[in-house]
């Protein structure tokens, strides 16, 4: 404005021609007008001036009153310049109210062109200034920016001429073309042999069409140096939105591109690694609390997308409750200490609820003391932890066990021993470390066989279980049971060898004792003086002591492994015997069983057996033991005894029977006798009663007859008594034979007469003798008895048949008396019983008889050591033949 005012051309009508109008103008402008005369006094001012003044303003005041001292230093020269006729402009700053003022001193000339006054135009240009300053600042900044950047910035007009360019542009241009491009020059020129020039042209044209865009081009900004450039084209529009130019902005993004490539590469690498790694990788941005995971979360822990919340809290939630606090604290500690590396071991929850041991390693990036980013790799160490746990347990076992544990390397050099080993052997780790485990079985009593076997197994890397004598540090003998277990790694190579040893000294002693006892027992069995043998479950002989061998004739070798049943027992006894054995096999002992056994010679012996089940240590029956007694002789004895008993019993029975018979006979005898007596007694009673009762009526003959009858009865009874007495005597053995010489002929003659008389001479008895002897020796009484009995019987039992033959002969030292009748005879069935007392033939009818006759006869014959025979035919007759031994010497025989 000041310029404009000072730029008033002469010749034009001035405004001051009209005062009131001028005054109005002056008072309504924001410009402050001061008119200063040559006295440097203000003679005129406007309203704005008043407002602008720092102090009170009045005419006649020196101009200096408007300004402060500092300002005057620059104002005064200016005003003076103006009074010299030159327009002077300057800026002034009021530090008091922080305002900027622009001052223009305009010389006022009179008509003579002399400067009479100076018109000071003052304008508060604070805002402007500020704006200007701002713009200037911006400009400056922009310039700085523009010219300090390596980015190339230029603009072209619609004719593709350079309008402006920054330093970088020029520099690049110069570098390239070795000359400077001026503003206004076309951006392309023919000599420009930039291979990209065609592309450039297109790019400009595109922008000139009004398109605002950015493109990445591979181009050169230095000769020979290709690079990636990012070029932005901004079409410049005028008010009418017509494109008047293009603002261009070129950035070398080669490096960036390079970095981008590298980054891409790294990301690819990362992805590959991330894919390849078995770890679960997490990536956490604390400020947004986003935590990303790679696929490891699925592969290791089994989580699907839907199960995962990508926040830090989710991870913490899935840490094992027992580890959570610790892990959280660790993390906070790291943050607090601003440490970059973090690692921790904890248990992480899998999708199935189980926990896995993990090793988490993280790297934290801080910015401005705050964690910007953390990346972690979570490694599944569960197996390893389990393995470690196992190892821990095992080592606990190894340390606590009472067994000695020795661990060697694959060369059998001792690496480690447990406490118990030390206790057991006296060797400490220092004593044995590095030494071969073979040192343990090196004593004089060590079984070389076992040693060799162990060594062989160790060399082959095979497990082994052995018992041998071990020498403690003090040289004490210990019985050791040792197990050798080779340990192979995953590749099948031998890594370590573990030896576990237990002290079995006591056990061995016990075993020895047992063995001794067993041997003693075996001896006991072998040399027992009774047969002891046994079989297994299948019946094969597995026990056979000496005595058994002796009595059976089979040696132990012969008997062993033979089937007991088939070899020694008769087939017909197999069911029974195997039944007994079965009892024993089922656990029930059998005692006192008489077992017949075949010996080797084919004889049979009998063993009284006890069969006992034989049990093993688990109480199962594994066979039978049979302990026996050879009772063959006893059996014989018993048989005999039984036989004897039988015999005796039957004898006894016989005797009893006879006894009974005898008793019966006796009672029969008694009743018969009483009966026999009663009959004659009845007759007597009747006869005598008759007489008494009818004596008056009876004739003497009748009476006499009765009396005869009575006498007859008495006589009969007497005979009976005699017979009975005879029997009695003979029974009692009281009859003694008295031998005397008997004249044969006389004897028999007399008897015949006697018998005839007593029987009423009803029969004729023919006597035929045939004996050389005159005398015979015998008991006369008995002989009489015999002959009389025979004859009377013959007569009695042949009523009507009157002939009876009596044959007497001597032959072979024997006297034979034969009596034959032709009477009723005796039935065949009755012949054997006729000599029994009171036996009467069925056919005797009314023929009188006691029934004792023949029995007496028999007795007499027996007493004379003779014999009596009977031959008879019922109805025809009977012949009795009595044979008696003669007492005479041979010389008496005539024949």
């Amino acid at each position, binding site marked *: 404005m000041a310029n404009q005012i000072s730029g008033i051309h002469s010749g034009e009508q001035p405004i001051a021609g009209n005062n009131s109008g001028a005054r109005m103008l002056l008072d309504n402008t924001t410009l402050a007008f001061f008119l200063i005369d040559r006295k440097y006094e203000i003679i005129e001012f406007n309203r704005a001036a008043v407002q602008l003044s720092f102090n009170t303003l009045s005419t006649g005041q020196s101009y200096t009153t408007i300004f402060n001292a500092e300002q005057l230093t620059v104002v005064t020269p200016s005003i003076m310049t103006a009074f010299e006729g030159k327009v002077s402009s300057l800026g002034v700053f009021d530090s008091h109210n922080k305002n900027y003022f622009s001052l223009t001193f305009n010389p006022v000339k009179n008509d003579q062109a002399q400067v009479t006054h100076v018109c000071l135009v003052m304008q508060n240009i604070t805002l402007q200034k500020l704006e200007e300053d701002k713009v200037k600042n911006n400009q400056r900044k922009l310039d700085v920016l523009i010219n300090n950047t390596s980015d190339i910035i230029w603009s072209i007009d619609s004719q593709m001429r350079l309008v402006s360019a920054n330093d970088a542009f020029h520099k690049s241009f110069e570098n390239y073309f070795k000359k400077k491009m001026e503003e206004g020059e076309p951006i392309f020129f023919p000599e420009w042999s930039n291979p990209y020039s065609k592309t450039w042209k297109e790019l400009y044209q595109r922008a000139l069409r009004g398109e605002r865009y950015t493109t990445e081009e591979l181009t050169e900004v230095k000769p020979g140096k290709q690079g990636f450039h990012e070029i932005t084209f901004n079409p410049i529009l005028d008010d009418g939105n017509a494109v008047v130019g293009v603002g261009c902005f070129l950035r070398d993004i080669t490096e960036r591109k390079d970095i981008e490539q590298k980054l891409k590469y790294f990301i690819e690498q990362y992805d590959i690694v991330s894919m390849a790694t078995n770890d679960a990788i997490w990536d956490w941005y604390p400020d947004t609390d986003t935590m990303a995971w790679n696929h490891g979360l699925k592969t290791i822990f089994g989580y699907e997308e839907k199960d995962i919340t990508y926040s830090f809290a989710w991870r913490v939630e899935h840490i094992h409750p027992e580890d959570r606090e610790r892990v959280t604290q660790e993390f906070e500690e790291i943050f607090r200490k601003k440490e970059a590396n973090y690692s921790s071991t904890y248990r992480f929850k899998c999708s199935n609820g189980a926990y896995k041991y993990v090793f988490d390693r993280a790297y934290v990036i801080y910015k401005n003391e705050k964690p910007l980013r953390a990346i972690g790799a979570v490694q599944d160490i569960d197996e390893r932890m389990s393995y470690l746990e196992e190892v821990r347990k095992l080592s606990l076992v190894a340390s606590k066990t009472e067994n000695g544990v020795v661990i060697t390397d694959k060369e059998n050099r001792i690496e480690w021993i447990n406490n118990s080993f030390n206790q057991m052997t006296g060797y400490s780790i220092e004593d044995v470390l590095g030494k071969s485990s073979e040192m343990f079985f090196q004593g004089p009593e060590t079984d070389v066989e076992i040693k060799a076997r162990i060594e062989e197994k160790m060399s082959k890397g095979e497990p082994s279980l052995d018992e041998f004598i071990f020498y403690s540090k003090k040289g004490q003998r210990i019985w050791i049971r040792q197990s050798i277990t080779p340990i192979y790694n995953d590749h099948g190579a031998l890594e370590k060898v573990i030896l576990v040893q237990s002290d079995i000294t006591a056990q061995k002693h016990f075993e020895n004792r047992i063995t001794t006892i067993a041997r003693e027992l075996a001896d006991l069995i072998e040399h027992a003086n009774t047969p002891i043998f046994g079989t297994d479950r299948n019946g094969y002989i597995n026990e056979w002591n000496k005595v058994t061998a002796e009595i059976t004739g089979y040696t132990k070798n012969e008997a062993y492994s033979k089937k007991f049943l088939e070899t020694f027992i008769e087939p017909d006894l197999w069911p029974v015997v195997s039944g007994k054995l079965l009892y024993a096999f089922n656990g029930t002992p059998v005692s006192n069983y008489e077992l017949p056994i075949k010996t080797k010679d084919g004889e049979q012996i009998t063993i009284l057996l006890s069969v006992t089940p034989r049990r093993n240590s688990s109480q199962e029956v594994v066979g039978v033991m049979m302990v026996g007694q050879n009772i063959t002789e006893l059996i014989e004895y018993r048989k005999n005894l039984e036989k004897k008993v039988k015999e005796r019993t039957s004898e006894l029975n016989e005797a009893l029977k006879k006894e009974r018979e005898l008793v019966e006979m006796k009672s029969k005898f008694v009743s018969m006798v009483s*009966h026999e007596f009663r*009959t004659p007694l009845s007759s007597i*009673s009747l006869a005598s*009663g*008759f007489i008494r*009762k*009818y004596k008056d009526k009876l004739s003497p003959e009748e009476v006499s007859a*009765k009396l005869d009858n009575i006498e007859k009865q008495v006589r009969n009874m007497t005979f009976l008594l005699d017979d009975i007495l005879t029997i009695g005597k003979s029974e009692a053995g009281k009859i003694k034979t008295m031998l005397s010489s008997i004249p044969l002929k006389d004897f028999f003659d007399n008897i015949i007469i006697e018998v005839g008389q007593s029987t009423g001479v009803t029969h004729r008895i023919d006597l035929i003798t045939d004996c050389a002897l005159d005398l015979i020796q015998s008991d006369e009484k008995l002989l009489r008895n015999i002959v009389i009995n025979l004859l009377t019987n013959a007569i009695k039992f042949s009523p009507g048949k009157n002939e009876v033959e009596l044959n007497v002969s001597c032959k072979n030292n024997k006297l034979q008396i034969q009596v034959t009748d032709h009477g009723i005879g005796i039935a065949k069935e009755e012949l054997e019983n006729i000599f029994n007392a009171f036996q009467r033939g069925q056919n005797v009818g*009314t023929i*009188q008889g006691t029934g004792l006759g023949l029995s007496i006869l028999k007795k007499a014959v027996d007493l004379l050591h003779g014999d009596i025979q009977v031959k008879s035919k019922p109805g025809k007759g009977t012949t009795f033949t009595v044979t008696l031994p003669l007492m005479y010497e041979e010389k008496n025989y005539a024949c």
Partner: protein
Amino acid sequence: MLVEDTPDLLENLTDTLRMEGYEVTTATNGAEALEILSHKVPDLIITDLVMPRMDGFTLVKKIKTMQSLEKVPLLIFSAKPLNDEETSELGADLYLKKPCPVENLLLSISNIVYG
């Protein structure tokens, strides 16, 4: 009817009974007795028990089966001792044991015969 095997006794008995006025028919054994009884019905049968050929027991049994002899009283005159069972089994009207005094015998007989 008198049945008795011993001849002397038979004789004595017969004589005694005849003297008393009884008519006496004799037999020496059971078979003989039956023979006679088949056509002759006595007022009284006196029999011994132990006899040959057919003893008294059998005879008595046989008599009991004979309707004609139903009303005829039976007297056993025997030496054989009998117990109560045997006696009742025989079922005789009277049993007399030998020897028996004449008076007793005659009295018993007259009781039976004449009521």
